[in-house]
């Protein structure tokens, strides 16, 4: 019993150790890596991804998968920019309605995704992948392919105003992370996600409405994608179809590298924070030590494979499909 538990404990802390190891590694190669300026840079690139990854964490905890984030982000970003510019162009006035508008768009797409998955009994992998394409197409339809510029200085202060060296958007993201943690640890919904991931039959046998919970998870995920979209727009000042680009790979990678099991039932949003940081530290560190960026993708690929290898208890599987 004893070695089993200690092995489990080590496994739990591996992601954090990897993160610290990476920081140490890049610092020895280039001392400039370890500076507030550089960390702020990492934080800026990490915050939108953090929101998206936190969103998909809930879905993965249930043992499902959501690949619709790129489409959802594109739609939410475009909806946000359109409402903002239509209603005065500033979040200080009526334009602030753009925020709930974008979140509602994210929630609606999440709900559609969940309903398709649950009611039509289509695997979440396929349902969400298809809906992601629909989202990208929808965003293109709305914008006609144009970029929408956001000039509102108040909104852009998320990036431009710094507190203790870090831009405001970092703090917004951390606040949302705490909210996500609260959902995970302190609400019946969060607890039930773990139950579904740990054993769907058991969850059903305990009287849980599994179908409804699945839809709720996709809605929560959609809302977090929209938050990610708003932060991504704040970072660039532009909303367009391309806003969602690359988030699928980055977010899923982050969740897995952070130690949340793809089979569901274990892990959580703190793991995802570590995972997002690992992915972004690698990206940033490669640049800092002067390696070409195509190395990054290779590194990340290897990292995902080792993370899945470490996080799965393969004794439980006779064969992996």
């Amino acid at each position, binding site marked *: *019993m004893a070695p*089993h*538990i200690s092995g489990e404990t080590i496994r739990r802390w591996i992601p954090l150790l990897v993160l610290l190891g990476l920081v140490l590694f890049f610092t020895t190669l280039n001392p400039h890596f370890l500076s507030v300026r550089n960390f702020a840079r990492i934080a800026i690139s990490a915050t939108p991804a953090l929101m998206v990854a936190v969103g998909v964490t809930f879905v993965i905890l249930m043992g499902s998968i959501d690949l619709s984030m790129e489409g959802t982000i594109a739609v939410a970003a475009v909806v946000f920019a359109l409402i903002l510019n239509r209603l005065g162009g500033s979040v200080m006035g009526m334009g602030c309605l753009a925020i709930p508008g974008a979140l509602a768009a994210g929630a609606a797409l999440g709900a559609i995704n969940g309903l398709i998955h649950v009611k039509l009994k289509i695997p979440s992998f396929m349902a969400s992948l298809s809906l992601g394409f629909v989202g990208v197409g929808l965003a293109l339809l709305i914008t006609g392919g144009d970029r929408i510029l956001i000039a509102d200085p108040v909104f852009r202060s998320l990036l431009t105003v710094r507190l203790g060296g870090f831009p405001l958007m970092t703090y917004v993201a951390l606040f949302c992370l705490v909210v996500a943690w609260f959902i995970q*640890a*302190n*609400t*019946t*919904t969060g*607890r*039930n996600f*773990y*139950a579904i*991931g*740990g*054993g769907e*039959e*058991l*969850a*059903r*046998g*305990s*009287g*849980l*409405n599994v179908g409804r919970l699945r839809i709720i998870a996709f809605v929560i995920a959609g809302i977090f994608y929209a938050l990610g979209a708003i932060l991504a727009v704040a970072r660039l000042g532009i909303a367009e179809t391309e806003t969602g680009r690359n988030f699928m790979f980055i977010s899923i990678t982050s969740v897995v590298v952070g130690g949340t099991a793809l089979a569901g*039932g*274990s892990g959580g949003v703190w793991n995802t924070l570590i995972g997002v940081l690992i992915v972004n530290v690698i990206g940033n560190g490669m640049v800092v030590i002067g390696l070409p960026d195509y190395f990054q993708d290779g590194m990340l690929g290897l990292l995902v494979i080792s993370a899945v290898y470490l996080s799965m208890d393969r004794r439980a599987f006779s064969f992996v499909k």
Partner: protein
Amino acid sequence: MFELKNVEKRYPGVHVLKGVDFHINDGEIVGLVGENGAGKSTLMKIIYGAVQPDAGSVLIDGKPLYFRTPRDAMRAGIGMVYQEQSLIPNLTVMENIFLGFEAPFVRMGAINWRKMAQAAQHQLNKVKLDIDPAIITSRLTFAQRQLVELAKVLALEERVEGRLVILLDEPTSVLSRKEIELLFDVVRELRRRASFIFVSHRLDEILALSDRVYVLKDGAIVDVVNSRQAQAESIQKKMVGRDINEQYYREDRQLAYRDDKILLELDRVVCKGRPHEISFKLHAGEVLALVGVEGAGREKILRSIFGMTRPEKGSIRVDGETMRAFSVSNSVAHGVGYIPRERKVEGIAGGMNVYENMTLSQLKGYSTGGVLKLGAEHELAREWIRKLSIKVPSENADCGNLSGGNQQKVVLAKWRSSGSRIIMLDHPTRGLDIGAKEDVYDMVREMSEKGVGVILIADTLEEAIGLSHTIAVVKDGEIKQWFNCQPGSKPSPFDLIRHMV
């Protein structure tokens, strides 16, 4: 000749096989009988190589062998005809017969289908099955598939030297009378090619087909009888006969139930796929045992009560209220709790800790507006850990690492603490050691004292008799016989088994 000598097997906490000696001569048909949990399936798994014995030896013609996998056993001429059919439904019959042994038909990487069809036809002729070997397996009837499975095992004949030993695990359980006769004729005919080990709950069939019968009880062979002289009754007695200790089942704590308070009533309920109506009443403080052989339809009754399947006809009343919706959440809300047989699959969420498992079915009571009251949850868990003396380091321990007995207690605490007044126990002591079993018996008595109604599917007949107030013998989905089981007037296992088989 195939032999097992002094075979031992232990699983954590259970001594499954205690020095079993077994032999079968060439061309012989040997029956193997025993109660559920006597160790039959473990013994079979050792014979066909799926499980390795801790001690003892497997010999063929006096030569010791060691099987690491079923494939090793197949190479030695031992084949298994599975109860749960092992044919792959979307492949053709011939592909199934030669699955994993296609090599003789392959030339330059391509399969010669004509050659394989001919070879398959040859195997099918052995079992007198007249079908096209290229037919898709899922289109066959159940009985035909059984014969294909037998043909698949017989294909070993051409591959191995020496005689075959073929295990038949409950081959007749889903066959009609006529199909059984057909199967038996085939088996008798095949005696010159192979010897057979025949496992069944139906003693009359065992006696009709086999030459000798091994009686297994509590992991030991208690008798080997010659079928010609044997009588079903004496074998039945040996299967169940053991010292029954009143203290063991806490019979001194058995109180009369309250017959004025009906918790649950089934009124002419017809379960899906069964033609018979089932009616019974469960009273406060009553333990009602459903007794029958595996597959007699006991689980279906429990699943209907728990809302997992909708009965085709009839009504189920809980506390006098007729159930309209059939869903698990509805049953749980009406105070029905179900402790299934497969704890690992349906009872305990591994990866969740003790308090999370306990409150899973009652989170509404431990939250306001969807926000959990973690303090109250911890308190509840600590209280029940103390009440049921669950051996855990703390309420934060992962349930997946607990022993079977302690997992059972956590599941029970889950239902009891949520106020369930009707508890259904499906094999609650399966796989537990003696001490843990006695804990479960104590819990059953304690529930009765509190006025909880219990429906029990027991692991053994003695357990059902010892624990229950009332026994219903279920056979083929029908309640055949009722027994009053109050202390002092308990029936004997033999009384029950007459109605079961």
